[in-house]
């Protein structure tokens, strides 16, 4: 039973398909996105970006540009010399580069002019003298070459980060196994491609304070970065996140264009707007890391895992961004679906001269999930087991702690598997690993995969003991309720979730509520829309704030009506005696009574996640108050003559805990399936020429993403297994359902035509190559053949809970005993 539930009372709002509170505005063109903001005397900004992937800046001459009529101000790197970055451990970005540029698209100078055309022309008049440097274009080069260095920090040469962790002894696990498999996989990078290009308006107010409107998912972190870089007191800076026209993780870093418009506004005393071109959005990137993987897994005859050794190699691009967290995430969640009693993880992130990678929907976990789920499929074939049944038999148990100290609460994956296996007619379709006795015709196939995702990160990005989410309520004597929270609506409906939950507790209609969010001056801190944290964390904070308000209302009403407090209920905009429902007052009257008794009515609520049992260095990535679960089956049609893969249908079941609004949950599941489909079939952030650091196609036309013609049919099942830590039992849905899609499609392709494409995206060329290899009697596989040789640090060793471990790493001396 969830701690934050309704104590068995019927729910009036939660679980019902209400319209979103901002739906009308979005369907009438009235939602104000960042680029829709126009202020008097506003200037327009253009940013000059490097056309070289790696070069020293010898000189920047802005004199010709400054002389252009209509140009008001130009700034270069020396105007903004303080570095910043989203993670405290990688403060490696400058708003404008000073000494060197590290990728094509790195910002060098910024113009403010009276209109966008003048700013553009001035930008082209800025003369930059560069001294080109050799580039680092791949993970392999970053490991081998340490001259030139992209950054002066990192774990070794151009290697940004190396991680090595071992929970229990994996070699013991392999010794116990009946089968040990080793496979390599590659997951190509891809980008968020939000429909809205990033935009921001900076305005240094007449009262000597700064306001930034920006399409950001993380106004609180932008606020902190601005205070640092601009050397202003944070109390003099206000960051307002405008509704995001799609985020998917791509608007989660503090960005150079945000810093630049603020600085230009401070210098000119006028509002300054920047709107990135689509090409610039590709250079902002922070998208999915390309990840090369090596997976070694030992299993018993029934598929039970005895040990797993997972190695990942991430191409991080030119800056740190979230990369250290991304690296840990490529190793964190392997243990939360199937029981993995002994687990070793080694991860490496490389700096390369490409746009920086960061968090995209599923942050660091879709890549290893692809490798894990395809390998499980191969194991099932070797053991001659049904891959659905083998997965079902080896699930992690609810209310347990994994080998790497992640605490599992509710766990609905078994139910998810049952639903899709039945709904898809799996047993009538799957080949049973017997190509000679196929049930579907050759070319048609079916594949399965599972996954899990966090419902919010256990720890904030910077160390502190404060809540991760705060909600403030103000009740006015007319019966209006205003909810204020720092959370940011990126389209997922987080504003609506606040209204639904407060309406549920206070017995009013969600549309009676005014929601004010994502404004650092007006709203309590919420850390932002990332790590699928918002419904769980703001939801719990909202319940607390609303229950505190409810308490004041019922105390005042009980006194007025002379009924016991415990008899009072709030519903249908009334506060009434449940034993005598006609005895009661309107909600507005209840507020008047409470305000008369207590003074102005305002309450707050906040949420901090429970402490994780992991105490070892690196234990900060992976813990979450709850884990969502998904399982998917894909049915595909592969044309053996062209290699073209058409995904006809996906059955997906998602363990949501409890739907706050099922229709919005359905939308998130369908959108996740769509994005996973794009990643597995076509989306790739790839580079050409010039040692592979020039973006191949920074445009929407050539960066292929699914249109209506490629999108598959989706059959969705929602599994409600309430989690004790979720508001009303709710878990996340924004990211998790993407994860099983790529491996399910890859496994279906194998079922259809008998070739393994161990690499994403699965393009027709790869399928054809594998089919030709197979026709020649060779291994029908396309994928990476090896991994770079790396000197890994001695792993940090942790005894597992089953071994009696306490969550701390073992002393180093014990390693050599």
């Amino acid at each position, binding site marked *: 039973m969830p701690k934050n539930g309704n104590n068995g009372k019927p729910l009036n709002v939660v679980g019902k398909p209400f319209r979103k509170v901002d739906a009308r505005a979005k369907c009438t063109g009235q939602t104000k996105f960042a680029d829709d903001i126009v202020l008097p005397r506003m200037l327009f900004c253009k940013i000059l970006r490097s056309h070289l992937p790696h070069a020293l800046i010898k000189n920047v001459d802005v004199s010709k540009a400054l002389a252009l009529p209509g140009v008001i101000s130009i700034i270069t790197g020396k105007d903004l010399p303080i570095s910043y970055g989203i993670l405290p451990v990688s403060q490696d970005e400058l708003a404008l580069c000073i000494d060197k540029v590290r990728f094509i698209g790195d910002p060098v100078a910024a113009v403010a002019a009276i209109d966008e055309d003048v700013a553009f022309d001035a930008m082209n008049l800025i003369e930059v003298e560069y001294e080109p440097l050799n580039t680092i274009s791949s993970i392999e080069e970053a490991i081998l070459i340490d001259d030139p260095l992209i950054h002066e920090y990192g774990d070794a040469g151009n290697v940004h980060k190396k991680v090595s962790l071992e929970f229990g002894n994996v070699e013991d696990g392999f010794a116990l196994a009946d089968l040990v498999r080793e496979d390599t996989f590659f997951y190509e990078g891809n980008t968020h491609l939000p*429909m809205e290009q990033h935009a921001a308006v900076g305005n240094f107010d007449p009262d000597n304070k700064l306001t930034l409107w920006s399409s950001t998912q993380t106004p609180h972190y932008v606020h902190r970065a601005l205070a640092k870089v601009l050397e202003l007191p944070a109390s003099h800076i206000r960051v307002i996140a405008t509704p995001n026209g799609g985020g998917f993780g791509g608007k989660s870093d503090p960005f150079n264009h945000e810093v630049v418009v603020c600085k230009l506004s401070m210098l000119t005393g006028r509002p300054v707007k920047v709107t990135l071109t689509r090409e610039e959005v590709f250079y902002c990137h922070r998208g999915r890391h390309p990840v090369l993987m090596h997976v070694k897994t030992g299993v018993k005859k029934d598929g039970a895992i005895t040990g797993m050794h997972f190695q990942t190699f991430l191409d991080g691009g030119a800056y740190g961004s979230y990369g250290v967290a991304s690296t840990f995430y490529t190793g964190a969640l392997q243990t939360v679906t199937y029981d993995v009693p002994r687990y070793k993880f080694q991860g490496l992130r490389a700096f390369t001269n490409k746009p920086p990678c960061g968090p995209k929907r599923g942050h660091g976990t879709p890549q290893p999930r692809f490798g894990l789920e395809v390998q499980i499929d191969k194991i099932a074939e070797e053991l001659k087991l049904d891959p659905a049944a083998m997965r079902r038999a080896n699930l992690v148990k609810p209310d347990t702690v994994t080998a790497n100290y992640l605490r599992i609460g509710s766990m609905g994956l078994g139910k998810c598997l049952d639903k899709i296996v039945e709904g898809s007619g799996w047993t009538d379709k799957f080949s049973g690993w017997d190509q000679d006795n196929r049930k579907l015709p050759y070319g048609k196939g079916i594949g399965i995969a599972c996954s899990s995702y966090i419902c919010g990160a256990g720890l904030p990005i910077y160390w502190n003991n404060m809540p991760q989410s705060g909600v403030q309520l103000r009740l006015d004597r007319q019966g209006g309720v205003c909810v204020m929270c720092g959370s940011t609506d990126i389209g997922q409906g987080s504003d609506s979730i606040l209204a639904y939950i407060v309406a549920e507790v206070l017995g009013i209609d969600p549309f009676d509520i005014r929601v004010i969010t994502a404004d650092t001056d007006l709203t309590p801190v919420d850390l932002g829309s990332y790590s699928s944290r918002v419904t769980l964390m703001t939801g719990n904070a909202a319940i607390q704030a609303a229950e505190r308000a409810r308490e004041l209302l019922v105390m005042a009403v009980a006194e007025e009506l002379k009924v016991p407090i415990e008899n009072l209920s709030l519903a249908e905009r009334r506060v009434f005696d449940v034993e005598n429902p006609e005895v009661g007052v309107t909600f507005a009257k209840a507020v008047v009574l409470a305000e008369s008794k207590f003074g102005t009515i305002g309450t707050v609520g906040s949420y901090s996640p429970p402490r994780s049992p992991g105490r070892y260095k690196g234990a900060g990535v992976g813990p979450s108050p709850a884990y969502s679960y998904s399982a998917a089956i894909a049915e595909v049609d592969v044309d053996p003559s062209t290699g073209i893969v058409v995904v006809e249908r996906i059955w997906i079941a998602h363990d949501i805990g409890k739907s706050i609004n099922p229709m919005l949950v*359905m939308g998130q599941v369908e959108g996740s399936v769509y994005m996973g489909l794009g990643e597995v079939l076509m989306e790739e952030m790839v580079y050409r020429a010039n040692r592979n650091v020039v973006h191949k196609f920074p445009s929407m036309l050539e960066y292929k993403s699914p249109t209506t013609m490629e999108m598959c049919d989706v059959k969705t099942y929602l599994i409600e297994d309430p989690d004790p830590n979720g508001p009303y039992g709710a878990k996340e849905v924004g990211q998790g359902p993407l994860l099983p899609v790529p491996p399910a499609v890859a496994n279906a392709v194998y079922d259809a035509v008998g070739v393994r494409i161990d690499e994403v995206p699965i393009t027709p060329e790869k399928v054809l190559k594998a089919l030709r290899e197979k026709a020649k009697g060779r291994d029908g596989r396309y994928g990476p053949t090896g991994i770079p040789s790396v000197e890994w640090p001695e792993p940090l060793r942790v005894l597992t809970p089953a071994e009696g471990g306490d969550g701390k790493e073992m002393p180093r001396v014990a390693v050599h005993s």
Partner: protein
Amino acid sequence: MSNPTKQKSHIQFALNGEPAEVAFAPHKTLLEVLREDLGLMGTKHGCELGECGTCTVLVNGRAILSCLMLGLDAEGQAVKTIEGMAEGAQLHPLQETFADTGAAQCGYCTPGFLLVAEELLKKDPNPSRDVIKEALSGNLCRCTGYIKIYEAVELAAARMRGEEAELPRESVYGL
């Protein structure tokens, strides 16, 4: 090279059913004129190269990409933007169903989809799912996977035909 003092051009046209006139730099696209010179921010932009469909408006009832049409070419034409879709305070049935089904997630591509769908339903009041897909294939949406958009179009079409239609239960609650 642009010149900030360059003389503006002037056009007269019908905008959302009302006479309009506007002066603007002659190289501007209809998208820029609508947003920057007429303050109609409901028309969005995703690429400004004709790739994404986000900036769709109706010109004489036909869906066009406003980023690929010069403002000057709107002279004498009838242009309809998202701001002109509702009848006064009464939303168009498509706007109602997009709002009710969650077809607008981030809402950025929504104006373009709504106008393309309006044109479709004028031509074909009872389109099949395949016809809807074909009609919407020039518009990208990164949030929804298009499914709630199809359902919103089908629901609006049914209501516009006078049927008392609701979303199937499985579309709201799953199977």
